[in-house]
C-alpha cells in the first residue's frame, strides 16, 4: 500500500521528465514536416494561381459588394489591401504567389512562410462569401508550421546548408542565418518549438477529422451510406457530370466511398494508435482525398488535407520513398538531360540551315554591294 502510494506520487514527476526528454530530443517527424510544408505551400499556390485572373472581382476593387461581411472579419491583415488600386493588388498577389513558391521549394523557408501566411490571410479574408473550410485549415497549418523545422529535407535551404557546411566553418551573422531559413535559436529552443508546433498541429488535425466525422455520423444519410449521392447531383460539385453519374449509379461504389469517408474521418484519431491501422487510415485518407479532388472539384483543399496527413507518416517510410523516388527518377533525369542535349543539337542544326543561313546570305549580299 505504501509502495503504491509512493508510486502514485512519483508518477507525475516521471511523466514530466519523460515529457521534457520528448520535447528536447532531436526533432521528430522532420520528413513529415517538410512534406506538410510543401503540400501546404502548393495548396496556397494553386489556389492563388487559379484565381489570379479573376482577382479583381474576387478580392479586389470589384469585390466592393462583399464589403458588409468583410467588415465583420477581425483579421488585422485585411488592412493591407484596404481600398488599394488594382496594380497594388496585383503586386501584392504576385509577391504572395512568389512566397508560396519559395516556401514549396524551401528557399528562405521561414521568411517565405511568414510572407505566405500574411499574404494568404490578407487576400482570402477579403471575400468570406466564397471562402471555405480549406482556408481555415491552410491558415492554421501555416501558423503552426512557423514554429516547426520544415526545411530539413527536400528544400533548397538544406542543400545550401550542406554546401556551406562543406565549404566553410559555417559562421555567419544571425540575420543572415535567419534569412537563409536556418536555425537562429539555440538547439534546445528550436527542438522545443518544433515539438510544440508538432503537438499543436497534430491535435488540430485529429480534432478536425473527429469533429467532422462526429457531425457526419449523426446524420441519417451518412449512416445509411448515401450521403454523397445528393452532393454529386449539385452543379457546383460535378465538374464531370458523366463521372459523377457513373459513381452514384453504382450503389456499391457509392456506399464504399461514403463509408470510407465517414469511417476515416470519425476514427482517424484512434486508428493512428496502431502501426498497421495507422498505415491503413493514412492511405485511405490520402486516396479518398485524391478521389474527391477530382470528383467534387476540390483540388486545393484536398491537397491541404493530404499535406496534413503526411505529418503522420514515419521518417523511415519517407526515407524509403525518397530512395525509391531517386532511384526511379535518376534514369528519367538522365534521359531528359540527354534529350535536352539532342534538342540543343537539333535546334542548332535547324538554325544553321535556316536563320543563320539567311543572315549569312543577307550579310554577304550587303558586303558585296
Amino acid at each position, binding site marked *: 500500500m505504501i509502495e503504491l502510494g509512493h508510486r502514485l506520487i512519483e508518477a507525475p514527476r516521471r511523466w514530466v521528465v519523460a515529457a521534457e526528454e520528448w520535447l528536447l530530443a532531436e526533432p521528430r517527424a522532420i520528413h513529415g514536416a517538410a512534406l506538410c510544408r510543401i503540400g501546404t505551400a502548393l495548396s496556397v499556390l494553386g489556389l492563388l494561381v487559379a484565381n489570379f485572373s479573376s482577382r479583381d472581382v474576387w478580392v479586389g476593387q470589384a469585390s466592393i459588394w462583399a464589403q458588409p461581411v468583410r467588415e465583420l472579419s477581425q483579421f488585422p491583415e485585411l488592412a493591407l489591401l484596404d481600398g488599394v488600386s488594382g496594380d497594388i493588388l496585383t503586386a501584392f498577389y504576385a509577391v504572395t504567389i512568389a512566397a508560396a513558391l519559395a516556401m514549396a521549394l524551401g528557399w528562405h523557408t521561414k521568411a517565405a512562410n511568414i510572407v505566405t501566411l500574411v499574404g494568404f490571410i490578407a487576400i482570402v479574408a477579403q471575400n468570406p462569401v466564397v471562402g471555405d473550410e480549406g482556408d481555415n485549415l491552410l491558415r492554421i497549418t501555416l501558423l503552426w508550421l512557423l514554429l516547426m523545422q520544415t526545411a530539413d529535407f527536400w528544400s533548397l535551404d538544406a542543400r545550401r546548408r550542406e554546401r556551406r557546411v562543406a565549404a566553410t566553418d559555417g559562421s555567419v551573422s544571425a540575420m543572415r542565418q535567419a534569412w537563409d531559413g536556418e536555425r537562429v535559436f539555440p538547439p534546445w529552443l528550436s527542438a522545443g518549438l518544433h515539438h510544440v508546433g508538432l503537438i499543436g498541429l497534430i491535435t488540430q488535425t485529429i480534432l478536425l477529422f473527429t469533429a467532422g466525422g462526429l457531425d457526419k455520423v449523426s446524420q441519417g444519410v451518412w*449512416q*445509411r*451510406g*448515401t450521403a454523397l449521392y445528393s452532393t454529386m447531383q449539385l452543379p457546383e460539385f460535378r465538374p464531370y457530370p458523366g463521372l459523377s453519374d457513373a459513381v452514384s449509379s453504382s*450503389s456499391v461504389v457509392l*456506399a464504399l466511398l461514403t463509408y470510407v469517408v465517414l469511417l476515416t474521418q470519425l476514427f482517424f484519431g484512434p486508428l493512428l494508435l496502431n502501426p498497421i491501422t495507422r498505415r491503413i487510415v493514412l492511405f485511405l485518407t490520402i486516396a479518398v482525398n485524391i478521389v474527391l479532388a477530382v470528383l467534387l472539384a476540390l483540388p486545393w483543399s484536398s491537397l491541404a488535407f493530404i499535406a496534413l496527413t503526411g505529418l503522420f507518416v514515419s521518417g523511415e517510410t519517407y526515407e524509403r520513398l525518397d530512395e525509391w523516388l531517386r532511384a526511379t527518377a535518376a534514369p528519367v533525369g538522365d534521359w531528359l538531360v540527354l534529350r535536352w542535349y539532342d534538342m540543343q543539337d537539333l535546334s542548332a542544326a535547324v538554325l544553321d540551315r535556316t536563320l543563320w543561313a539567311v543572315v549569312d546570305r543577307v550579310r554577304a549580299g550587303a558586303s558585296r554591294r
Partner: protein
Amino acid sequence: MPRVSLRSLFIAVAVIMAGFQLVAVTLAALPPNRYSDAAAPRTSYLAPYFTQNWRLFAPSPVAEDREVWFQGTYTAADGSVKTTAWVDWTAVELDLVQHRLVGGRAGYVTSKLYGPLGQAYRGLGTAERETADETPQDSPPRWAQLRADLLAGGASPGRVSTFLLYEQATARLATDVLLSRWPDRELTAVRYRLRSAPVVPYESRSGTAAERAASRPEATERDSGWRRPTPGTAAERRTVASFDRRHR
C-alpha cells in the same frame, strides 16, 4: 488440384460460418441503412436468439414515468353496479426497484408491458380504436366477439391479433390483481389505464422539490375499454396476491 483434407474442410466451413455470422450481426446491430435492409432476408435467421437491439436509451432516452393501473366493475351486495378504486400496479412493482442495489426482475413487468400495449393499440385504425374503447361496461364482449367487431371494420387481421394478445394478457393480470385486493367481489368487467408522466424538464432541474413538481408537464392517460374478467388459475392468483401483499 491438391487433395482437400478433412481438416482443411472443417476449418474452412467453420471460418465461413463464423464469418457469415459476423457480417450478419454487424448489419443487424447498426441502425438500419439501405445495405442492412437489402441483406435483411439473409440475416433474418438471427431472430429471436441473436436479435440485435442495442438502442440502450437511444435515440430518445426514456423521459417519463410509465404506469399501468387497473380498475374493475362489480355487483355490490345490494345489487347495484359499482367500480373499484384504481390500483396502481406499477407502484407496487417499484418496491422492488427503489433503494435497492440489485432490483428484482419483477420490478419492470409493467414498464415492459407498457410499450407493446400502446404500440398494438396505435397499430389499429381510428374506427377500430373506437370499437376497442367503447365496449359496454355492463356486458363486455367475449374475445371472439371483440375480434369479429374489430375485423368488421376491415382492419388487418395481424394487427388485430397482436392487439388482442396484449389485451388478453393484461386483462388477466388485471383480474388477478383486483381479485387479490378484493377477493370476495364478483367482478363483471375490468380495464387498464396507461399513464405517462413526463419528468421534470431539464431547464427546471435546479428548483426546489415543489418547483420541480410544478414544472412537470401534465401526465397523459389512456383508459382501455371494458374487458371481460379473465381470472387465472388458483395458483396464479395466489402468487399475484402474495406478491401484492409483500410489496404493496
